[in-house]
Protein backbone atom coordinates (compact mmCIF):
# COMPACT_ATOMS: atom_id res chain seq x y z
CA UNK A 1 0.00 0.00 0.00
CA UNK A 2 1.09 3.58 -0.66
CA UNK A 3 -0.04 5.55 2.35
CA UNK A 4 -0.57 9.22 1.58
CA UNK A 5 -2.92 10.12 4.42
CA UNK A 6 -0.44 11.01 7.15
CA UNK A 7 -2.52 13.99 8.27
CA UNK A 8 -5.27 11.55 9.23
CA UNK A 9 -2.90 9.38 11.20
CA UNK A 10 0.59 7.95 10.95
CA UNK A 11 2.09 4.47 11.29
CA UNK A 12 4.02 3.84 14.49
CA UNK A 13 7.72 4.62 14.27
CA UNK A 14 9.49 1.23 14.57
CA UNK A 15 11.37 2.52 17.63
CA UNK A 16 8.06 3.51 19.24
CA UNK A 17 6.62 0.10 18.56
CA UNK A 18 9.67 -1.55 20.11
CA UNK A 19 9.47 0.70 23.16
CA UNK A 20 5.77 -0.04 23.68
CA UNK A 21 6.24 -3.78 23.34
CA UNK A 22 9.08 -3.72 25.88
CA UNK A 23 6.91 -1.71 28.25
CA UNK A 24 3.72 -3.79 28.09
CA UNK A 25 4.42 -5.90 31.19
CA UNK A 26 4.83 -2.83 33.39
CA UNK A 27 1.36 -2.81 34.85
CA UNK A 28 2.16 -0.66 37.87
CA UNK A 29 0.07 2.37 38.69
CA UNK A 30 2.31 5.46 38.66
CA UNK A 31 0.54 6.70 41.78
CA UNK A 32 1.54 3.62 43.82
CA UNK A 33 4.41 4.10 46.21
CA UNK A 34 5.97 0.63 45.99
CA UNK A 35 8.53 -0.36 43.44
CA UNK A 36 6.43 -1.35 40.39
CA UNK A 37 4.52 1.90 40.75
CA UNK A 38 7.65 3.98 41.19
CA UNK A 39 9.25 2.40 38.13
CA UNK A 40 6.33 3.28 35.93
CA UNK A 41 6.15 6.75 37.45
CA UNK A 42 9.78 7.22 36.45
CA UNK A 43 9.04 6.18 32.87
CA UNK A 44 6.12 8.60 32.70
CA UNK A 45 8.35 11.38 33.96
CA UNK A 46 11.07 10.44 31.47
CA UNK A 47 8.55 10.81 28.66
CA UNK A 48 7.42 14.15 30.07
CA UNK A 49 11.03 15.31 30.18
CA UNK A 50 11.63 14.31 26.54
CA UNK A 51 8.61 16.30 25.43
CA UNK A 52 9.68 19.29 27.51
CA UNK A 53 13.15 19.11 25.98
CA UNK A 54 11.73 18.97 22.48
CA UNK A 55 9.40 21.92 23.00
CA UNK A 56 11.92 23.75 25.19
CA UNK A 57 9.63 24.14 28.17
CA UNK A 58 9.39 22.94 31.74
CA UNK A 59 8.20 19.35 32.42
CA UNK A 60 5.61 20.81 34.83
CA UNK A 61 4.04 22.53 31.88
CA UNK A 62 3.23 19.23 30.13
CA UNK A 63 -0.21 17.70 30.76
CA UNK A 64 -0.97 14.33 29.20
CA UNK A 65 -4.45 14.06 27.68
CA UNK A 66 -6.31 11.44 25.67
CA UNK A 67 -5.37 13.10 22.39
CA UNK A 68 -5.45 16.35 20.50
CA UNK A 69 -9.22 16.72 20.71
CA UNK A 70 -9.13 16.45 24.49
CA UNK A 71 -6.29 18.96 24.76
CA UNK A 72 -8.31 21.44 22.69
CA UNK A 73 -11.46 20.80 24.73
CA UNK A 74 -9.57 21.21 27.99
CA UNK A 75 -8.36 24.68 27.12
CA UNK A 76 -11.50 25.99 25.49
CA UNK A 77 -14.03 24.61 27.95
CA UNK A 78 -11.65 25.19 30.84
CA UNK A 79 -11.26 28.87 30.13
CA UNK A 80 -14.93 29.38 29.44
CA UNK A 81 -16.29 27.54 32.44
CA UNK A 82 -13.84 29.25 34.80
CA UNK A 83 -15.20 32.50 33.50
CA UNK A 84 -18.77 31.40 33.96
CA UNK A 85 -18.06 30.39 37.54
CA UNK A 86 -16.34 33.70 38.15
CA UNK A 87 -19.47 35.33 36.77
CA UNK A 88 -17.80 37.10 33.93
CA UNK A 89 -20.67 38.05 31.69
CA UNK A 90 -20.41 38.24 27.89
CA UNK A 91 -17.50 35.84 27.65
CA UNK A 92 -15.96 36.13 24.17
CA UNK A 93 -13.56 33.86 22.26
CA UNK A 94 -11.76 34.51 18.97
CA UNK A 95 -10.97 31.74 16.53
CA UNK A 96 -10.72 31.12 12.79
CA UNK A 97 -13.20 29.70 10.27
CA UNK A 98 -10.98 26.72 9.43
CA UNK A 99 -10.23 25.16 12.82
CA UNK A 100 -10.37 21.41 13.38
CA UNK A 101 -13.82 20.08 14.43
CA UNK A 102 -12.49 19.50 17.95
CA UNK A 103 -12.21 23.30 18.26
CA UNK A 104 -15.15 24.23 16.03
CA UNK A 105 -17.74 22.00 17.64
CA UNK A 106 -16.50 22.76 21.14
CA UNK A 107 -17.06 26.44 20.46
CA UNK A 108 -20.44 25.74 18.89
CA UNK A 109 -21.37 24.00 22.12
CA UNK A 110 -20.22 26.99 24.20
CA UNK A 111 -22.22 29.34 22.00
CA UNK A 112 -25.33 27.57 23.24
CA UNK A 113 -24.22 28.53 26.73
CA UNK A 114 -24.05 32.17 25.76
CA UNK A 115 -20.36 32.41 25.05
CA UNK A 116 -19.81 34.68 22.07
CA UNK A 117 -17.45 33.46 19.40
CA UNK A 118 -15.84 35.36 16.53
CA UNK A 119 -14.88 33.11 13.63
CA UNK A 120 -12.29 35.07 11.69
CA UNK A 121 -12.40 34.61 7.94
CA UNK A 122 -9.36 33.42 6.00
CA UNK A 123 -8.07 34.60 2.64
CA UNK A 124 -7.91 32.50 -0.52
CA UNK A 125 -4.82 30.73 0.83
CA UNK A 126 -6.36 29.95 4.21
CA UNK A 127 -4.45 32.63 6.09
CA UNK A 128 -5.86 34.55 9.03
CA UNK A 129 -5.08 38.24 8.91
CA UNK A 130 -3.51 39.23 12.23
CA UNK A 131 -5.06 42.68 11.93
CA UNK A 132 -8.47 40.99 12.02
CA UNK A 133 -7.46 39.39 15.30
CA UNK A 134 -6.60 42.78 16.74
CA UNK A 135 -9.90 44.26 15.54
CA UNK A 136 -11.95 41.41 17.01
CA UNK A 137 -10.60 41.86 20.54
CA UNK A 138 -13.08 43.14 23.11
CA UNK A 139 -12.77 43.70 26.79
CA UNK A 140 -14.73 40.46 27.33
CA UNK A 141 -12.34 38.36 25.21
CA UNK A 142 -11.03 35.51 27.34
CA UNK A 143 -9.22 33.40 24.75
CA UNK A 144 -7.77 33.50 21.27
CA UNK A 145 -7.48 30.05 19.73
CA UNK A 146 -5.97 29.78 16.27
CA UNK A 147 -4.47 26.61 14.84
CA UNK A 148 -0.77 26.53 14.03
CA UNK A 149 -1.26 24.72 10.73
CA UNK A 150 -4.36 23.43 9.02
CA UNK A 151 -5.00 19.72 8.64
CA UNK A 152 -6.73 19.85 5.25
CA UNK A 153 -4.69 22.35 3.27
CA UNK A 154 -1.52 22.65 5.37
CA UNK A 155 -1.57 26.45 5.56
CA UNK A 156 0.63 27.75 8.39
CA UNK A 157 -0.82 30.68 10.32
CA UNK A 158 1.16 33.76 11.42
CA UNK A 159 1.06 32.46 14.98
CA UNK A 160 3.96 34.66 16.16
CA UNK A 161 2.19 37.84 15.13
CA UNK A 162 -1.08 36.69 16.63
CA UNK A 163 0.64 35.74 19.87
CA UNK A 164 2.16 39.19 20.10
CA UNK A 165 -1.24 40.80 19.69
CA UNK A 166 -2.71 38.52 22.33
CA UNK A 167 0.13 39.30 24.75
CA UNK A 168 -0.20 43.04 24.22
CA UNK A 169 -3.86 42.79 25.12
CA UNK A 170 -3.31 40.39 27.99
CA UNK A 171 -5.48 37.70 26.46
CA UNK A 172 -4.53 34.01 26.76
CA UNK A 173 -3.55 32.47 23.43
CA UNK A 174 -3.98 28.80 22.52
CA UNK A 175 -2.83 27.08 19.38
CA UNK A 176 -3.82 23.67 18.06
CA UNK A 177 -0.40 22.50 16.90
CA UNK A 178 -1.47 18.92 16.21
CA UNK A 179 -0.43 19.13 12.56
CA UNK A 180 2.52 21.47 13.08
CA UNK A 181 4.53 19.48 15.61
CA UNK A 182 7.23 17.45 13.96
CA UNK A 183 7.06 19.55 10.83
CA UNK A 184 7.73 23.08 12.05
CA UNK A 185 10.27 23.74 14.82
CA UNK A 186 8.44 25.05 17.89
CA UNK A 187 10.49 26.64 20.68
CA UNK A 188 8.30 27.61 23.60
CA UNK A 189 11.03 29.75 25.19
CA UNK A 190 11.13 31.92 22.10
CA UNK A 191 7.40 32.44 21.88
CA UNK A 192 4.87 33.31 24.52
CA UNK A 193 2.04 31.05 23.45
CA UNK A 194 0.08 30.18 26.59
CA UNK A 195 -1.48 26.85 25.60
CA UNK A 196 -0.57 24.40 22.86
CA UNK A 197 -2.12 21.06 21.86
CA UNK A 198 -0.42 18.13 20.21
CA UNK A 199 -1.36 14.55 19.44
CA UNK A 200 0.58 11.28 19.49
CA UNK A 201 -0.82 9.58 16.42
CA UNK A 202 0.14 12.37 14.03
CA UNK A 203 3.81 12.02 14.95
CA UNK A 204 4.29 8.26 14.56
CA UNK A 205 3.16 7.63 18.12
CA UNK A 206 0.08 5.84 19.46
CA UNK A 207 -3.54 6.97 19.22
CA UNK A 208 -5.49 8.21 22.23
CA UNK A 209 -2.61 10.14 23.75
CA UNK A 210 -1.92 13.85 23.45
CA UNK A 211 -0.32 16.71 25.26
CA UNK A 212 -1.53 20.05 26.46
CA UNK A 213 1.22 22.54 27.16
CA UNK A 214 0.13 25.07 29.75
CA UNK A 215 2.57 27.86 30.45
CA UNK A 216 3.37 28.42 34.12
CA UNK A 217 1.66 31.47 35.47
CA UNK A 218 -1.30 31.36 33.11
CA UNK A 219 -4.74 31.50 34.55
CA UNK A 220 -5.84 28.18 36.02
CA UNK A 221 -8.26 26.08 34.00
CA UNK A 222 -11.17 24.03 35.21
CA UNK A 223 -10.19 20.43 34.43
CA UNK A 224 -12.33 18.69 31.84
CA UNK A 225 -12.02 15.41 33.74
CA UNK A 226 -12.03 15.84 37.49
CA UNK A 227 -11.10 13.17 39.98
CA UNK A 228 -7.69 12.21 41.33
CA UNK A 229 -4.59 14.33 41.49
CA UNK A 230 -2.98 13.01 38.31
CA UNK A 231 -1.41 15.54 35.93
CA UNK A 232 -1.38 18.20 38.67
CA UNK A 233 -5.16 17.66 38.99
CA UNK A 234 -5.57 19.01 35.48
CA UNK A 235 -6.48 15.62 34.04
CA UNK A 236 -7.75 13.00 36.46
CA UNK A 237 -7.68 9.29 35.77
CA UNK A 238 -4.94 6.70 35.97
CA UNK A 239 -2.42 7.60 33.30
CA UNK A 240 -2.42 6.00 29.85
CA UNK A 241 1.06 4.72 30.60
CA UNK A 242 1.46 2.81 27.33
CA UNK A 243 0.47 5.90 25.37
CA UNK A 244 2.72 8.16 27.42
CA UNK A 245 5.77 5.93 26.97
CA UNK A 246 4.90 5.75 23.26
CA UNK A 247 4.52 9.48 22.71
CA UNK A 248 7.71 10.10 24.68
CA UNK A 249 9.63 7.86 22.32
CA UNK A 250 7.91 9.39 19.27
CA UNK A 251 9.07 12.83 20.38
CA UNK A 252 12.57 11.54 21.02
CA UNK A 253 12.68 10.24 17.45
CA UNK A 254 11.40 13.57 16.11
CA UNK A 255 14.28 15.22 17.89
CA UNK A 256 16.70 12.96 16.03
CA UNK A 257 15.06 12.81 12.61
CA UNK A 258 12.86 15.81 12.08
CA UNK A 259 15.23 17.98 10.08
CA UNK A 260 16.20 15.33 7.54
CA UNK A 261 12.67 13.87 7.32
CA UNK A 262 11.09 17.22 6.67
CA UNK A 263 13.53 17.88 3.84
CA UNK A 264 12.81 14.54 2.24
CA UNK A 265 9.05 14.85 2.65
CA UNK A 266 9.03 18.33 1.16
CA UNK A 267 11.08 17.13 -1.79
CA UNK A 268 8.61 14.28 -2.43
CA UNK A 269 5.58 16.55 -2.04
CA UNK A 270 7.02 19.04 -4.52
CA UNK A 271 7.74 16.21 -6.92
CA UNK A 272 4.14 14.99 -6.60
CA UNK A 273 2.79 18.49 -7.11
CA UNK A 274 4.83 19.22 -10.21
CA UNK A 275 4.18 15.74 -11.62
CA UNK A 276 0.42 16.12 -11.27
CA UNK A 277 0.44 19.63 -12.69
CA UNK A 278 2.52 18.49 -15.64
CA UNK A 279 0.47 15.41 -16.50
CA UNK A 280 -3.10 16.45 -15.66
CA UNK A 281 -4.96 19.45 -17.05
CA UNK A 282 -7.56 21.56 -15.26
CA UNK A 283 -6.41 21.10 -11.67
CA UNK A 284 -5.94 23.66 -8.93
CA UNK A 285 -4.08 23.62 -5.65
CA UNK A 286 -6.18 24.56 -2.60
CA UNK A 287 -4.49 26.69 0.04
CA UNK A 288 -1.07 28.23 0.42
CA UNK A 289 1.83 26.98 -1.59
CA UNK A 290 4.53 28.85 0.36
CA UNK A 291 3.52 28.91 4.02
CA UNK A 292 2.43 25.32 3.92
CA UNK A 293 3.26 22.13 5.82
CA UNK A 294 5.97 20.21 3.96
CA UNK A 295 3.96 17.02 3.38
CA UNK A 296 0.58 18.39 2.35
CA UNK A 297 -0.87 18.83 -1.11
CA UNK A 298 -4.57 19.56 -1.56
CA UNK A 299 -5.72 19.52 -5.17
CA UNK A 300 -9.06 19.86 -6.94
CA UNK A 301 -9.34 17.68 -10.03
CA UNK A 302 -12.10 19.67 -11.64
CA UNK A 303 -15.18 18.00 -13.17
CA UNK A 304 -14.89 14.79 -11.16
CA UNK A 305 -15.91 13.98 -7.63
CA UNK A 306 -13.55 13.32 -4.72
CA UNK A 307 -15.03 10.13 -3.32
CA UNK A 308 -14.86 8.48 -6.73
CA UNK A 309 -11.22 9.46 -7.03
CA UNK A 310 -10.48 8.24 -3.52
CA UNK A 311 -12.06 4.83 -4.08
CA UNK A 312 -10.42 4.27 -7.43
CA UNK A 313 -7.05 5.18 -5.94
CA UNK A 314 -7.83 2.75 -3.13
CA UNK A 315 -8.18 0.10 -5.82
CA UNK A 316 -4.62 0.97 -6.86
CA UNK A 317 -3.56 0.56 -3.23
CA UNK A 318 -3.16 4.29 -2.65
CA UNK A 319 -4.69 5.92 0.45
CA UNK A 320 -5.72 9.60 0.32
CA UNK A 321 -8.64 11.66 1.62
CA UNK A 322 -11.17 14.09 0.17
CA UNK A 323 -13.11 17.22 1.07
CA UNK A 324 -16.12 16.09 -0.92
CA UNK A 325 -19.46 15.92 0.87
CA UNK A 326 -19.93 12.34 -0.24
CA UNK A 327 -17.25 11.06 2.06
CA UNK A 328 -18.07 13.09 5.11
CA UNK A 329 -21.57 11.83 5.73
CA UNK A 330 -22.85 15.39 5.55
CA UNK A 331 -24.36 17.20 2.61
CA UNK A 332 -21.83 19.98 2.25
CA UNK A 333 -18.28 19.83 1.03
CA UNK A 334 -15.41 20.70 3.38
CA UNK A 335 -15.92 23.98 5.24
CA UNK A 336 -12.18 24.52 5.11
CA UNK A 337 -12.02 24.45 1.31
CA UNK A 338 -15.15 26.56 0.86
CA UNK A 339 -13.81 29.10 3.40
CA UNK A 340 -11.06 29.81 0.86
CA UNK A 341 -13.72 31.00 -1.56
CA UNK A 342 -13.38 27.85 -3.66
CA UNK A 343 -16.75 27.08 -5.31
CA UNK A 344 -18.65 24.09 -3.95
CA UNK A 345 -18.28 22.03 -7.12
CA UNK A 346 -14.53 22.45 -6.95
CA UNK A 347 -14.49 21.55 -3.25
CA UNK A 348 -16.31 18.31 -4.11
CA UNK A 349 -13.38 17.55 -6.42
CA UNK A 350 -10.67 17.99 -3.80
CA UNK A 351 -8.16 15.36 -2.78
CA UNK A 352 -5.65 15.68 0.05
CA UNK A 353 -2.31 13.94 -0.25
CA UNK A 354 -0.35 14.02 3.01
CA UNK A 355 3.09 12.48 3.00
CA UNK A 356 5.06 10.94 5.82
CA UNK A 357 8.41 9.50 6.77
CA UNK A 358 7.79 6.14 5.13
CA UNK A 359 7.08 7.46 1.62
CA UNK A 360 9.60 6.88 -1.14
CA UNK A 361 10.34 8.34 -4.53
CA UNK A 362 8.86 5.20 -6.09
CA UNK A 363 5.59 5.79 -4.20
CA UNK A 364 5.34 9.20 -5.77
CA UNK A 365 6.10 7.96 -9.29
CA UNK A 366 3.41 5.28 -8.97
CA UNK A 367 0.94 7.74 -7.51
CA UNK A 368 1.35 10.21 -10.34
CA UNK A 369 0.61 7.46 -12.87
CA UNK A 370 -2.38 6.11 -10.92
CA UNK A 371 -3.90 9.55 -10.39
CA UNK A 372 -3.50 10.38 -14.04
CA UNK A 373 -5.25 7.16 -15.05
CA UNK A 374 -8.03 7.65 -12.48
CA UNK A 375 -8.70 11.25 -13.45
CA UNK A 376 -8.72 10.33 -17.11
CA UNK A 377 -11.20 7.48 -16.51
CA UNK A 378 -13.58 9.55 -14.39
CA UNK A 379 -13.46 12.56 -16.68
CA UNK A 380 -14.47 10.34 -19.59
CA UNK A 381 -17.64 9.29 -17.81
CA UNK A 382 -18.34 12.70 -16.23
CA UNK A 383 -21.46 14.63 -17.20
CA UNK A 384 -19.63 17.94 -16.88
Amino acid at each position, binding site marked *: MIYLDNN*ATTPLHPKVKEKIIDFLDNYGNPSSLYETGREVKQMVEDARQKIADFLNCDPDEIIFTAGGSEANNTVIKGVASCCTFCNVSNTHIITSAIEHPSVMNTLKCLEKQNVEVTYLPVDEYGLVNSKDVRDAIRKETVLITIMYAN*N*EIGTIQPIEEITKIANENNIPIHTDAVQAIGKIPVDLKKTSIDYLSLSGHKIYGPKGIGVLFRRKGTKSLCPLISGGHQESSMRAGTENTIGIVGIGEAIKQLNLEMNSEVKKIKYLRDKLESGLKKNISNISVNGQTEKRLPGVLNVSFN*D*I*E*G*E*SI*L*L*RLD*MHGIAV*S*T*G*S*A*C*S*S*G*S*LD*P*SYVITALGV*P*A*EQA*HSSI*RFSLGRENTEEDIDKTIIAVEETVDFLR*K*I*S*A*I
Partner: protein
Amino acid sequence: MSGTNWNYSDKVKEHFFNPKNVLKVSEEEYNADGVGENGSPVCGDLMRIYIKVKDNKIYDMRWKTFGCASAIGSTSMLSVMVTENGGMELEEAMKIKPDDIIKELGGLPPNKIHCSVLGDKALRAAIKDYYRNFDQVNKINKEKESRIVCHCLNVTEDEIKMEVLEGVKDFDTLQKRTKVSTACGKCEPEVRELLDKYVKKYYIKDIYTGE
Protein backbone atom coordinates in the same frame (compact mmCIF):
# COMPACT_ATOMS: atom_id res chain seq x y z
CA MET B 1 -12.37 14.84 6.05
CA SER B 2 -13.31 11.81 8.00
CA GLY B 3 -13.17 8.41 6.39
CA THR B 4 -15.60 7.27 3.76
CA ASN B 5 -18.58 5.25 4.81
CA TRP B 6 -17.36 2.29 2.77
CA ASN B 7 -20.46 0.23 3.22
CA TYR B 8 -21.02 -0.41 -0.44
CA SER B 9 -22.34 -3.75 -1.58
CA ASP B 10 -20.34 -5.87 -4.02
CA LYS B 11 -22.84 -4.93 -6.72
CA VAL B 12 -22.17 -1.22 -6.25
CA LYS B 13 -18.43 -1.82 -6.33
CA GLU B 14 -18.74 -3.92 -9.47
CA HIS B 15 -20.66 -1.19 -11.28
CA PHE B 16 -18.44 1.57 -9.92
CA PHE B 17 -15.19 -0.06 -10.92
CA ASN B 18 -16.50 -1.36 -14.27
CA PRO B 19 -19.35 0.90 -15.26
CA LYS B 20 -21.60 -0.43 -18.03
CA ASN B 21 -23.11 1.52 -20.93
CA VAL B 22 -21.12 4.73 -20.52
CA LEU B 23 -21.53 7.07 -23.48
CA LYS B 24 -18.17 6.74 -25.17
CA VAL B 25 -18.79 8.59 -28.43
CA SER B 26 -19.83 12.22 -28.85
CA GLU B 27 -23.48 13.19 -28.33
CA GLU B 28 -23.79 14.04 -32.03
CA GLU B 29 -22.49 10.67 -33.07
CA TYR B 30 -24.75 8.78 -30.66
CA ASN B 31 -27.78 10.78 -31.75
CA ALA B 32 -30.12 9.79 -28.92
CA ASP B 33 -33.91 9.76 -29.28
CA GLY B 34 -34.21 11.33 -25.83
CA VAL B 35 -31.86 13.01 -23.38
CA GLY B 36 -32.49 13.79 -19.69
CA GLU B 37 -30.42 15.41 -16.99
CA ASN B 38 -30.64 15.73 -13.22
CA GLY B 39 -28.59 17.09 -10.33
CA SER B 40 -26.09 19.89 -10.04
CA PRO B 41 -22.32 19.98 -9.67
CA VAL B 42 -22.71 22.30 -6.67
CA CYS B 43 -24.37 19.45 -4.80
CA GLY B 44 -21.75 17.02 -5.98
CA ASP B 45 -23.83 14.98 -8.41
CA LEU B 46 -24.89 15.53 -12.01
CA MET B 47 -26.05 12.91 -14.46
CA ARG B 48 -27.20 12.82 -18.05
CA ILE B 49 -29.03 9.91 -19.64
CA TYR B 50 -29.38 9.16 -23.36
CA ILE B 51 -31.94 6.66 -24.67
CA LYS B 52 -32.76 5.05 -28.00
CA VAL B 53 -36.28 3.74 -28.49
CA LYS B 54 -37.81 1.25 -30.92
CA ASP B 55 -41.30 -0.28 -30.76
CA ASN B 56 -41.96 1.55 -27.49
CA LYS B 57 -38.94 -0.14 -25.88
CA ILE B 58 -35.64 1.33 -24.68
CA TYR B 59 -33.19 -0.81 -26.62
CA ASP B 60 -30.15 1.25 -25.68
CA MET B 61 -29.31 3.59 -22.83
CA ARG B 62 -26.06 5.48 -22.33
CA TRP B 63 -25.08 7.86 -19.55
CA LYS B 64 -22.51 10.23 -18.12
CA THR B 65 -22.19 11.02 -14.43
CA PHE B 66 -20.30 13.42 -12.22
CA GLY B 67 -20.56 12.08 -8.71
CA CYS B 68 -19.55 9.68 -6.01
CA ALA B 69 -19.23 5.91 -6.26
CA SER B 70 -22.92 5.24 -5.62
CA ALA B 71 -23.97 7.82 -8.21
CA ILE B 72 -21.82 6.14 -10.81
CA GLY B 73 -22.70 2.62 -9.68
CA SER B 74 -26.43 3.27 -9.57
CA THR B 75 -26.59 4.91 -13.01
CA SER B 76 -24.69 1.97 -14.43
CA MET B 77 -27.10 -0.44 -12.69
CA LEU B 78 -30.08 1.50 -14.02
CA SER B 79 -28.74 1.24 -17.56
CA VAL B 80 -28.58 -2.54 -17.23
CA MET B 81 -32.09 -2.78 -15.74
CA VAL B 82 -33.56 -0.69 -18.51
CA THR B 83 -31.92 -2.42 -21.46
CA GLU B 84 -31.79 -6.12 -20.47
CA ASN B 85 -34.09 -8.67 -22.16
CA GLY B 86 -34.58 -6.61 -25.29
CA GLY B 87 -35.34 -3.37 -23.49
CA MET B 88 -37.94 -2.07 -21.07
CA GLU B 89 -41.22 -0.58 -22.23
CA LEU B 90 -41.38 3.18 -21.77
CA GLU B 91 -44.34 3.04 -19.39
CA GLU B 92 -42.49 0.56 -17.20
CA ALA B 93 -39.29 2.62 -17.27
CA MET B 94 -41.27 5.70 -16.29
CA LYS B 95 -42.30 3.91 -13.10
CA ILE B 96 -38.80 2.99 -11.89
CA LYS B 97 -38.28 4.29 -8.39
CA PRO B 98 -35.07 4.80 -6.43
CA ASP B 99 -35.99 1.79 -4.32
CA ASP B 100 -36.00 -0.45 -7.39
CA ILE B 101 -32.44 0.54 -8.24
CA ILE B 102 -31.32 0.24 -4.63
CA LYS B 103 -32.77 -3.25 -4.41
CA GLU B 104 -30.89 -4.36 -7.52
CA LEU B 105 -27.73 -2.91 -6.03
CA GLY B 106 -28.15 -4.88 -2.82
CA GLY B 107 -28.64 -1.74 -0.73
CA LEU B 108 -26.92 1.59 -0.22
CA PRO B 109 -25.78 3.52 2.86
CA PRO B 110 -28.73 5.80 3.80
CA ASN B 111 -26.90 9.08 3.25
CA LYS B 112 -26.08 7.99 -0.29
CA ILE B 113 -29.63 7.49 -1.47
CA HIS B 114 -30.01 10.89 -3.10
CA CYS B 115 -27.32 9.93 -5.62
CA SER B 116 -29.32 7.12 -7.13
CA VAL B 117 -32.55 9.08 -6.97
CA LEU B 118 -31.07 11.22 -9.70
CA GLY B 119 -30.83 8.26 -12.06
CA ASP B 120 -34.54 7.56 -12.22
CA LYS B 121 -35.35 11.26 -12.46
CA ALA B 122 -32.90 11.72 -15.32
CA LEU B 123 -34.36 8.67 -17.05
CA ARG B 124 -37.90 10.08 -16.76
CA ALA B 125 -36.63 13.34 -18.18
CA ALA B 126 -35.08 11.44 -21.08
CA ILE B 127 -38.34 9.60 -21.78
CA LYS B 128 -40.31 12.83 -21.70
CA ASP B 129 -37.75 14.32 -24.05
CA TYR B 130 -38.32 11.34 -26.36
CA TYR B 131 -42.10 11.86 -26.22
CA ARG B 132 -41.62 15.50 -27.13
CA ASN B 133 -39.24 14.68 -29.95
CA PHE B 134 -41.57 12.08 -31.41
CA ASP B 135 -44.92 13.79 -31.13
CA GLN B 136 -46.32 11.88 -28.16
CA VAL B 137 -46.64 14.75 -25.70
CA ASN B 138 -50.02 13.40 -24.61
CA LYS B 139 -48.22 10.58 -22.79
CA ILE B 140 -46.45 12.99 -20.43
CA ASN B 141 -47.79 13.69 -16.94
CA LYS B 142 -49.53 10.41 -16.50
CA GLU B 143 -47.26 9.51 -13.59
CA LYS B 144 -48.77 9.26 -10.21
CA GLU B 145 -47.62 12.17 -8.09
CA SER B 146 -46.71 11.67 -4.45
CA ARG B 147 -49.15 12.95 -1.85
CA ILE B 148 -48.78 16.64 -1.03
CA VAL B 149 -48.34 17.25 2.70
CA CYS B 150 -47.68 20.99 2.76
CA HIS B 151 -50.11 22.61 0.37
CA CYS B 152 -48.78 26.14 0.82
CA LEU B 153 -45.27 25.23 -0.27
CA ASN B 154 -46.20 22.20 -2.36
CA VAL B 155 -44.00 19.72 -0.48
CA THR B 156 -44.77 16.02 -0.90
CA GLU B 157 -44.29 13.08 1.42
CA ASP B 158 -41.74 11.68 -1.02
CA GLU B 159 -39.69 14.84 -0.75
CA ILE B 160 -39.62 14.60 3.03
CA LYS B 161 -38.50 11.00 2.76
CA MET B 162 -35.75 11.96 0.33
CA GLU B 163 -34.52 14.74 2.60
CA VAL B 164 -34.18 12.21 5.40
CA LEU B 165 -32.29 9.86 3.14
CA GLU B 166 -29.96 12.69 2.29
CA GLY B 167 -29.13 13.05 5.96
CA VAL B 168 -31.68 15.50 7.34
CA LYS B 169 -32.71 14.44 10.81
CA ASP B 170 -34.32 17.47 12.45
CA PHE B 171 -37.22 19.72 11.65
CA ASP B 172 -35.22 22.96 11.45
CA THR B 173 -32.91 21.60 8.79
CA LEU B 174 -35.81 20.12 6.86
CA GLN B 175 -37.52 23.48 6.96
CA LYS B 176 -34.39 25.32 5.89
CA ARG B 177 -34.01 23.08 2.89
CA THR B 178 -37.62 22.70 1.76
CA LYS B 179 -39.38 25.72 3.30
CA VAL B 180 -42.01 23.24 4.50
CA SER B 181 -44.53 24.66 7.00
CA THR B 182 -43.32 28.23 6.62
CA ALA B 183 -46.64 29.69 5.49
CA CYS B 184 -49.89 28.84 7.30
CA GLY B 185 -48.14 26.23 9.43
CA LYS B 186 -51.13 23.90 9.52
CA CYS B 187 -49.07 21.02 8.16
CA GLU B 188 -46.36 21.17 10.84
CA PRO B 189 -47.63 18.36 13.11
CA GLU B 190 -47.95 15.99 10.18
CA VAL B 191 -44.55 17.00 8.78
CA ARG B 192 -42.95 16.37 12.15
CA GLU B 193 -44.63 13.00 12.35
CA LEU B 194 -43.44 11.98 8.88
CA LEU B 195 -39.93 13.21 9.65
CA ASP B 196 -39.87 11.17 12.81
CA LYS B 197 -41.18 8.12 10.97
CA TYR B 198 -38.52 8.18 8.27
CA VAL B 199 -35.67 9.02 10.63
CA LYS B 200 -36.60 6.00 12.73
CA LYS B 201 -36.93 3.90 9.64
CA TYR B 202 -33.61 4.69 7.99
CA TYR B 203 -31.21 5.43 10.78
CA ILE B 204 -31.32 2.26 12.77
CA LYS B 205 -29.51 0.35 10.06
CA ASP B 206 -26.30 1.07 8.20
CA ILE B 207 -27.58 -0.08 4.86
CA TYR B 208 -30.88 0.79 3.26
CA THR B 209 -32.16 -2.05 1.15
CA GLY B 210 -35.25 -0.58 -0.41
CA GLU B 211 -38.82 -1.06 0.59
